[in-house]
């Protein structure tokens, strides 16, 4: 069978095209050699379909580039994402703990220990010269400096917590931003790949976005191919769906109504899906920057409030026995069997070690406009009335489809209803019941979360314990002066002396914290209120109480860590060890990440030498193909012009 006369020119042209395409791919690779997330592309070159040429056999017809593929290993991506989120978590923790170390400012000559020691120096001065008023003023001034320093630490810790909270919000914004980018990319990739070819560069970009996203939170991706060959890409964060093809679930932050830890600054954020459900974070799988922020912000070393519900299910007043701590917020949320129930006040029974929580509205008001949320988590208002503090009636409910439990707010006071019932037609009056849910009794209840990390709340609570104990011990001694009517040396801001801090009760001292710890203002006004002696009618040089105060410094029973010095030392030790651990973990993770990154680059990276080689290779291929065409041209010249004439 005869072939077309111009067959040879056709093959040559194929060669030109193929070589040019390959050169262009090389060009693209070189141009993107340093592009973040870019993976090396390669043209798949194939010989075109051969032609049967009778007995001669198959004659080759040239070559073509059938596909442009990218070199990328999904397994390495998966490994990288898993490591980068741990890296993100420890980066944040390292940052926080470094700041914490700065706040504690030890060991220096200007740290808390120094201020504490200075106070003791002044006490010694006073012990050797109890009658001198200047010495006394010195003592009060040094006590004042100590409380100021503590308060300063308090506000710095608060600021740190707020910064971390803000970091968490930024993370949420970033997640939303990435989710939005992913939807766009998914759509573009979907459209482009309908042809069956892979949209390499867009895929690279999508993977890059996931690289970024996986720093923030642990990510799972899946690509599904339906029966028509259409591919859908899903991204989940911490096991919950974030992006499904071109649709994204967005997140938002909502300020907490109540405090998780009593040490918390107000308006800490919880993360919700815009659809209303809370983003489930409380498991051990979550990692990433977000985890770092949450641990840093909420970490309480597992010392959140816990207790056993003794009685009260079905009522507005539940009694909790053996509480793990009693310095809890005035208003808060009890977690009973996973249901969050707001309490508006509580009383502590010291004798039986029981706390009774009141779940009802704080004051009996007849009604008004209450804020509620519907099943979708959207807020709306409703006119309500109630007769008792345990029942709220919605007379003309605009929304008949309420969630079975939820929060209602009236003038800023929140309560939780755990069930409701509907009245008969035509009013369908709805009665919301505010009560501890059935099955509450004998269960363990808690406030906030049990977070094993030592974050801001942990250190604040430690310092709180320190100042409370110091205040109590100092006050106990000073109260022995002046015939047993000595003033209290340490108090909290706004303390008026009524009701007096009860030195026999720890509970009473829980009003003091590092934000309000001060020297009693009466003592500042009149340093003579620092009592030197418990003796009546003793002379000015009697110093027994001052000596008692000095002895406190070596009272090893004062804290579970020992004397006050030990307490501070072990606190600094804890920060140091935690920080050191985080740093070494992060460094290790960094090396691992570098390894995986390099493995990825080994597969996907552009190697300039290789590309140069390719460039030369394809250039020569092109040159030779061009030569073939000119050879063919000569053949035709010979055939047409010289033959037969």
């Amino acid at each position, binding site marked *: 069978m005869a072939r077309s006369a111009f067959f040879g020119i056709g093959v040559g042209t194929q060669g030109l095209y193929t070589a040019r395409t390959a050169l262009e791919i090389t060009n693209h690779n070189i141009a993107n*050699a*340093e592009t973040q997330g870019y993976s090396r592309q390669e043209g798949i070159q194939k010989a075109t379909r051969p032609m049967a040429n009778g007995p001669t056999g198959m004659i080759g017809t040239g070559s073509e580039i059938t596909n442009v593929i990218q070199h990328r290993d999904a397994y390495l991506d998966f490994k990288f994402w898993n490591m980068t989120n741990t890296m993100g978590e420890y980066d944040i923790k390292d940052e926080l*703990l*470094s700041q914490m*170390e*700065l706040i*504690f400012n*030890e*060991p220096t*000559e200007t740290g808390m*220990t*120094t201020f504490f*020691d200075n106070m*003791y*120096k002044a006490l*010694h001065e006073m*012990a*050797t*010269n109890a*009658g001198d008023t200047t010495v006394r003023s010195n003592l009060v001034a040094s006590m004042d400096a100590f409380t100021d320093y503590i308060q300063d630490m308090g506000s710095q810790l608060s600021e740190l917590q707020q910064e971390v909270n803000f970091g968490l919000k930024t993370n949420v914004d970033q997640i939303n931003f990435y989710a939005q980018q992913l939807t766009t990319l998914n759509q573009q990739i979907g459209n482009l790949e309908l042809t069956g070819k892979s949209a390499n560069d867009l895929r690279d970009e999508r993977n890059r976005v996931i690289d970024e996203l996986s720093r923030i939170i642990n990510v799972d991706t899946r690509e599904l191919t339906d029966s028509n060959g259409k591919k859908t890409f899903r991204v989940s964060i911490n096991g919950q769906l974030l992006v499904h093809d071109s649709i994204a679930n967005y997140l938002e932050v909502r300020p907490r109504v109540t405090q998780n830890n009593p040490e918390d600054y107000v308006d800490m954020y919880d993360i919700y899906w815009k659809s209303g459900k809370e983003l489930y974070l409380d498991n051990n799988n979550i990692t990433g920057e977000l985890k770092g922020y949450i641990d840093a912000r909420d970490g309480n070393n597992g010392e959140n409030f816990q207790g056993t519900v003794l009685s009260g299910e079905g009522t507005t007043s539940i009694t909790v026995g053996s509480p793990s701590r009693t310095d809890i917020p005035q208003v808060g949320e009890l977690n009973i069997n996973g249901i969050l129930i707001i309490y508006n006040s509580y009383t502590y029974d010291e004798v039986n070690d029981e706390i009774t929580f009141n779940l009802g509205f704080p004051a009996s008001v007849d009604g008004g406009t209450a804020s509620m949320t519907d099943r979708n988590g959207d807020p709306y208002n409703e006119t309500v009335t109630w007769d008792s503090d345990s029942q709220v009636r919605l007379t003309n409910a605009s929304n008949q489809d309420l969630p079975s439990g939820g929060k209602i707010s009236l003038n800023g006071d929140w309560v939780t209803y755990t069930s409701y019932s509907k009245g008969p037609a035509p009013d369908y009056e709805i009665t919301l019941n505010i009560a501890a849910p059935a099955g509450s009794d004998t269960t363990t209840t808690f406030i906030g979360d049990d977070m094993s990390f030592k974050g801001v709340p942990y250190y604040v609570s430690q310092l709180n314990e320190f100042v409370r104990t110091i205040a109590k011990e100092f006050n106990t001694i000073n109260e022995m002066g002046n015939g047993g009517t000595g003033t209290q040396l340490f108090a909290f801001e706004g303390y008026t002396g009524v009701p007096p801090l009860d030195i026999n009760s720890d509970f009473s001292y829980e009003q003091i914290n590092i934000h309000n710890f001060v020297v009693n203002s009466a003592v500042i006004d009149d340093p003579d209120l620092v009592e030197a002696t418990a*003796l*009546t*009618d*003793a*002379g*000015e*040089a*009697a*110093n*027994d109480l001052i*000596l008692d105060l*000095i*002895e406190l410094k*070596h009272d090893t029973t004062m804290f579970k860590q020992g004397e006050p*010095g030990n307490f*501070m*030392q*072990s606190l*600094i*030790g804890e*920060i*140091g*060890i935690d*920080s*050191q651990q985080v*740093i070494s973990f992060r460094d290790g993770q960094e090396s691992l990440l*570098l390894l995986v*990154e*390099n493995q990825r*680059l*080994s*597969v996907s*990276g*552009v*190697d*300039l*030498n290789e590309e*140069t*080689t390719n460039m*030369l290779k394809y250039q020569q291929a092109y040159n030779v193909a061009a030569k073939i065409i000119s050879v063919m041209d000569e053949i035709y010249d010979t055939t047409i012009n010289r033959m037969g004439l």
Partner: protein
Amino acid sequence: MRITNTMMTNNILHNINRNKQTLSIYEEQLATGKKIQKPSDDPIVAVRALKFRTNIKEVDQYKSNSEDGISWCEVSEQAVANITDIMKRIRDLCVQAASDTMNIQNRKNTVTEVEQLMNQFMMEINASYAGRHVFGGYKTNVPVIFKEVSTDNYELTEHFSSDDVETVQRVVNDVIVDAHRIRLGYDEVDAPIDLTDLTSLPAFAGGVVTMNSTDATVVGPPDVGPYAPVAGTINFLQDTGELVFNEADVANIPATFDFEYSKNLFKKGDMVPDHYFDGRNTSTVPVTTFTVDPEEILYQISYSQELAVNTMAYDVVTIDMARDIQELVKTTTAIAADSSLTSELEEDLLGDMFGHLLTGVNSHIDNLLDTRADIGVKINRLELTINRLSEDNLNFTELMSKNEDIDFAEVMVKMSSQDAVYNASLQASSQIIQPSLLDFIR
């Protein structure tokens, strides 16, 4: 394995960065001279650093307390030494004056000298350290002896026992009689306040309590002098400050009893009652109440070690001593050179009085020596403590330095070798990154 350009730059950057980090650690150490900059650099060093800082501060504080204590003790010791010297001089004078060869004029001269010595003595007992009276117990702001006349009204309670009743010889109506008396802390006293204690004495139950007027005229049977009360009665002599008993009653005086009286005029040189008696000063606002207790001013000189640095006034000078001298001076000066029988008899008794004083002064000097030895022991202990604390300070400072300070030589060496490593890594990088295939294609 396929090696790409980005891999190479990544690795190089990572390694250079690591070298830089190590270098910066050494640089920080050299700049601060400390091994650690923050607790996480080495938590153990950080905690120990905190401990040592506190320890050193404490040791310094104890040392400063001890030094303060020594100064206090030295002031006390000097005063006690001076008082001992004065007492020795008084003893010498007494030895001379006790001799019967001395005539009244000689004795009067002696007494004048004793009076002079007493003035000096007052200055010593009021010794002060940084404005505080060292012998004042807790009442460091109250002098031990009145520096000027005081009209403060004091109400004093004195505690007596039957052993306090002494027998003295007095001239009454040209006869020497034995008087059984209890001497109060002061002469020239005011009215008795609380007689219940006296009337409750079993021997005097229902008896008449009699008092002299200020001029010591006799109340009671006219032929009996103030020193010879009727059985069952007590004479309260306000000018000399004595309670006088009839001989017959002495055996019946109860083992212990209290007597409360007031006094509102103190001469310069009188002992301040606050340091010697229980009672109150009603002239101050508010009324000052005082009791005699061993008031120890404790200085903390080491971990849980306290030392009383002060010496109580009554350990230095007793009220009896002061009264002995006062009585002698008063008696001697009162004797008129009129050669009357009374005067002659009184002169005869004077020798005994000097003798009595001599015994008192002797035992008093013994007391003073004891007191001085006590103070010496304290100074000794404080000095030993200071020595030990200085050593502690040295040890702790050394430990602290070892714990947190760098060895400059060592760090310098480490840094320069690290510097070499860093430079090498830079050099190597420049060699690796630069050439590519392009360099070799014409």
